[in-house]
């Protein structure tokens, strides 16, 4: 990296829940400097973080320049592009161009955006490699729950044989509430929408698309599969009834939407009530099968502004460590 050893300069591209979370938590990290923040309408250069967060929360524009997000990525001198625009599973834009341009300009990328990685995983990792910069994406899978770096760093000595997980908090919330409160699917879905746990159009979550994206990212990262969306066999949770959950429960099972990375499959599964993957509410969990370390299960918050930002910060900090 070109800048001084002591200071890491970053841009935040996308200023929604996650972007604001990142801006909030990096305020407390002395060696990180935010040089620009972009939302869909414009760019704040050399922003005062408190001020820009207040403006955004108050619904005011944040822009103080005529630059676009791409201008920032291409021309403003900095080390790391934090790409946190919306996930688009059809082609990955605008994130894909942001990530490509950042890497071409020899900036590291830290992202929570699944779109670019689902659309062009191999191309992007290659591009990062050729340009000698890092592409880190812990936050794309499991939010605050460590998985990508856990496997890459902590479990570096073991061979990963399979990864399976409950990777979508919205589905998990719906299934948990239906089972525990004996409520119908539609009822719980509306409740989740009210609480901001589910989107107005819940398809992306309940049809298993989000889980499939995470399966693709893990399959590409750890099994070299170069998979895209069409390769995954996906069944969602929208046909599951409350009675079915009660029947399962009577026999000692919960139903969870499970992503199986080796199989490239997403489908509801019966999970014994006492099983470590049987996490409730919006929690995520993943179970990693290795040759030497056996099976390791992690669980944690799969979404949320600050939670996801914490995973992004851990990627940024590890870039700092790599540099020194």
């Amino acid at each position, binding site marked *: 990296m070109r800048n001084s050893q002591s200071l890491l300069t970053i841009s935040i591209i996308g200023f929604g829940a996650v972007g604001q979370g990142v801006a909030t938590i990096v305020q407390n990290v002395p060696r990180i400097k935010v040089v620009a923040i972009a939302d869909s309408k414009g760019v704040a250069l050399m922003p005062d973080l408190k001020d820009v967060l207040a403006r955004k929360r108050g619904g005011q524009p944040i822009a103080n320049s005529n630059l676009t997000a791409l201008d920032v990525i291409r021309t403003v001198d900095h080390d790391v592009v934090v790409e946190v625009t919306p996930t688009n599973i059809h082609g990955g834009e605008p994130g894909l161009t942001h990530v490509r341009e950042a890497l071409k300009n020899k900036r590291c990328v830290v992202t929570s955006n699944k779109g670019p990685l689902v659309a062009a995983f191999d191309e992007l990792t290659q591009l990062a490699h050729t340009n000698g910069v890092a592409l880190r994406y812990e936050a794309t899978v499991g939010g605050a729950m460590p998985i990508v770096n856990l496997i890459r760093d902590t479990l570096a000595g073991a061979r990963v044989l399979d990864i399976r997980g409950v990777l979508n908090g919205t589905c998990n919330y719906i299934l948990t509430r239906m089972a525990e409160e004996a409520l119908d699917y539609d009822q719980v879905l509306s409740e989740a929408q009210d609480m901001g746990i589910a989107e107005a159009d819940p398809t992306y979550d309940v049809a298993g698309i989000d889980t499939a994206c995470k399966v693709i990212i893990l399959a590409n990262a750890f099994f070299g599969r170069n998979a895209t969306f069409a390769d995954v066999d996906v069944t969602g949770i929208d*046909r599951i009834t409350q009675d*079915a959950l009660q*029947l399962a429960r*009577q*026999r000692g099972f919960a139903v969870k939407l499970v992503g199986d990375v080796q199989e490239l499959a997403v489908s509801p599964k*019966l999970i014994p009530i006492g099983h470590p993957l049987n996490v409730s509410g919006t929690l995520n969990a993943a179970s990693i099968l290795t040759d030497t370390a056996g099976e390791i299960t992690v669980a944690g918050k799969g979404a949320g502004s600050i939670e996801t930002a914490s995973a992004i910060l851990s990627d940024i900090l590890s870039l700092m460590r790599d540099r020194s």
Partner: protein
Amino acid sequence: MRISMDLELQDTPGQLKHVLTPISDLGGNIASIVHHHDKKTFRNTVPVSVIFDIEEQTLEELQDGLEQNGVTVVRIGKMRLRARTHILLIGHIIHTDLRDTIDEIDGTGFAEVQDLSLSMPAIDGPSSAIITIMATGDEELKKSIGILRQIAERKDLLIIEPLDERGSPGGVSNEE
């Protein structure tokens, strides 16, 4: 208990009743019968394999009965249904379909549906069922799940299988 028997019958018409009658007289239930006409023995008998469920303590009596009828009992195998799984079905499950499904699995001779709970909340709403399938081994269990998958696909049912246990694919849990 599930029993598999290899028998030899005289190659003349009407021999099968000498096998079926003693089994059903003792309360047995036939799951499958195969005639191996192509493997006729030098004694001019035809090997037959029969799979049936019967109380274990009647076995000796059954063997006597078969031999009195001129049937040679070559081998008696006690099949233990060791592998077990549960499957959840959701959709417009019609009773007759379910019966067919169960019959198809029971008819394999290596697996059977042991337990069924059905829940039909509304007339035109989807219903749900959970079944337990027992099979003689893991492979057989996988085969019967395969049958169920085909049926589910044909009838547009959502089937939910257990998470595979590591090391024994197919959602199998072994029990003695």
